């Protein structure tokens, strides 16, 4: 190694599992922050879990028969039904446990889907799962487009981003012209016991939230921003950095809603300008100053609203 600089000693993190529940050798792209998010989710829960996964990047990179990357019981049925399949697993185990046919121990049920499988096609199944109150952690790993099929826009694609179905053109110079669907607010509106945003750049925060969700007696929804170097047109070694910028510019704030109480988990003294986050991302390279400013105004407005929500004391 040419790098002779003295490295900072990284202190071991408390309760950080050294077990791996998703094996390396999977087929994710270089620098994929989504598979990193999956790794941390699994570590936070441990071996006593079952996962139902939607069709998508994480499914396709991990399960080409006869190979598998999963060191946990795992099922994939279709694209739009991870929440419903998880509901079924949870209900089945509940009945079997009650009848004494399986051991009386807690098994964490996780449903996982990408932004397409969650915010678009799986939206109804997710809403049903939350409303019925299944004890399932639903994790959306959001890379902000249909990356598995070749970077098409989803309702979680942010405003201004170009994808293969929200290209820039003479009539639509801005790329995607609508705002990203606010899934955590939607989950909160269901009266869900616990919902939060997370990002693998801040992996201790992510793990803490998953563990919190695990303890909740009911459904929980965790929305994880997962930088996709391939789809966002950024270098693979910048995925972690862009995750940090998304949070510190206020584009993707880290917060949680616990029994109706909103809480900011990371509050920078001053937000960085959104242009810092856009810079270097191929999907935003067409943005002019005027449109960037428009987005900046909206991000600031939304951030202020969030800060306000998070400062409110919940009604007792």
């Amino acid at each position, binding site marked *: 190694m040419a790098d002779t600089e003295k490295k900072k000693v990284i202190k071991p993190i408390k309760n950080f599992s050294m077990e791996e529940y998703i094996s390396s050798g999977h087929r994710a792209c270089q620098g994929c922050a989504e598979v990193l998010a999956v790794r941390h989710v699994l570590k936070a829960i441990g*071996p006593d879990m079952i996962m139902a996964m939607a069709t998508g990047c994480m499914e396709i990179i991990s399960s080409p028969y006869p190979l598998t990357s999963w060191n946990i019981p795992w*099922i994939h049925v279709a694209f739009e039904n991870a929440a419903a399949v*998880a*509901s079924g*697993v949870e209900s*089945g185990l509940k*009945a079997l446990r009650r009848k004494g046919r399986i051991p009386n121990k807690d098994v964490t049920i996780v449903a996982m889907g990408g932004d397409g499988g969650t915010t678009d096609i799986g939206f*109804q199944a997710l809403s*049903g799962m939350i409303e019925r109150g299944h004890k399932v952690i639903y994790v959306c790993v959001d890379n902000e487009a249909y990356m598995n099929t070749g970077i098409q826009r989803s309702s979680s694609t942010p405003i201004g981003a170009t994808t293969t179905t929200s290209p820039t053109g003479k009539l639509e110079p801005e790329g995607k012209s609508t705002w990203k669907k606010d899934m955590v607010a939607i989950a909160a509106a269901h009266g869900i016991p616990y919902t939060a945003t997370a990002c693998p750049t801040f992996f201790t925060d992510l793990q803490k939230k998953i563990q919190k969700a695990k303890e909740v007696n009911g459904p929980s929804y965790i929305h994880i921003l997962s930088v996709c170097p391939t789809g966002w047109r950024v270098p693979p070694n910048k995925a972690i950095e862009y995750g940090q910028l998304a949070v510190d510019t206020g584009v993707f704030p880290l917060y949680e809603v616990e029994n109706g109480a909103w809480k900011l988990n990371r509050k920078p003294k001053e937000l960085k300008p959104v242009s810092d986050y856009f810079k270097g991302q191929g999907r935003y390279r067409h943005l002019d100053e005027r449109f960037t400013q428009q987005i900046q105004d909206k991000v600031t407005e939304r951030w202020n609203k969030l800060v306000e929500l998070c400062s409110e004391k919940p009604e007792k």
Partner: protein
Amino acid sequence: MGRKVGIEVSIAAAEAVGLCDVDVVAAYPITPQTHVVEHLSELCASGELDAEFVPVESEHSAMSVCCGSSAAGARTFTATAAQGLALMSEIVFIASSMRLPMVMFLANRALSSPLSIWNDHSDTMMVRDSGWIQVFCENGQEVYDSIFHSFRVAEDPKVSLPVMINVDGFNLTHVIEPIEFWTKEMAQKYIPPFKPLYKLYPDKVVTMGAFGMPEIYAEAKMSQDQALWNSYPVIKQAWDELAALTGRKYSPVELYKTEEAETLILGMGTICETASLAVDKMREQGKKVGLVKLRLWRPLPVDDIKNAISGAKNLLVLDRAVSFGAANGPVTTEIQSIMYHEKERPNIYNVIAGLGGRDVTPEDIIKMLETALANKNQGYNIHGVRG
């Protein structure tokens, strides 16, 4: 032996599901399936049935919940009809491909459009090639007994496939019939506990629903096809054991007054009861007519059908669905296909009848037969339709 009661067929079916000690019921309401799931939710609410009733937000989720619960090793039941089956059909194909045993009560209803809540077989024909075991019922007792039989067959480790019980909507779901009930002990004796070869539980790591590259997909489909064919002896054996238990004998193909019959009528479901009355009348007139009832639709009992019809001169096949733009109705196409290579085979005529709840009487069937034999029509016609 259980007691005999006059009861609505849907309620009796739900009672049977309860006796099977089902673990999970997931369903979405749709006419004419509702009475089945309403009664099951009542049984769960009152504590008479220890099961999870999952009131899903769509049929797509109903079938998805069933896949999850079956994969977890829970005994699983659902019920639907027509549009509900259409909405869940994506997952219907996956359930059988993933070899997830479960039982579905399908209240056969016409597909939209125009919207119709009434009976025909267009819904089930849509999922004909889904890889499920598919049986048809003629009366309430058959429906009731089929629930036990279906759980027994579906969960047999040699089968491990979902089973669909076809019950003609309204014509059968909503009628009150005398039905001889089973006891809990009979059900327990007949259906062993569900022990799947693989299930989702942390004591053993499994990956279910991996994706298939071109190198493996064809093999996966071949093994699925073999599994469905291999279910045939299990289905028969389970019917034999059911006969020993109840005294009621079921077969893949059942015959009615076929002795020395020159002309046969073949149908599936409740139309067979109507056809049996038509046969009675024609026999009274000295006509050599008999009836062949096809109870098992998938896997198709090819040899049983050949044995039943090869000696006849004429065969009228009653279809209850249109296969648009095809040579014949779906049942007729199959019968013609399996008889093509036979040296002795009847002239096969096809009538499509009873679409969207259009009533079919014994007189209609007599007329269909007379017209077919007189005109010797090739291809199909839709009976009684106004031009």
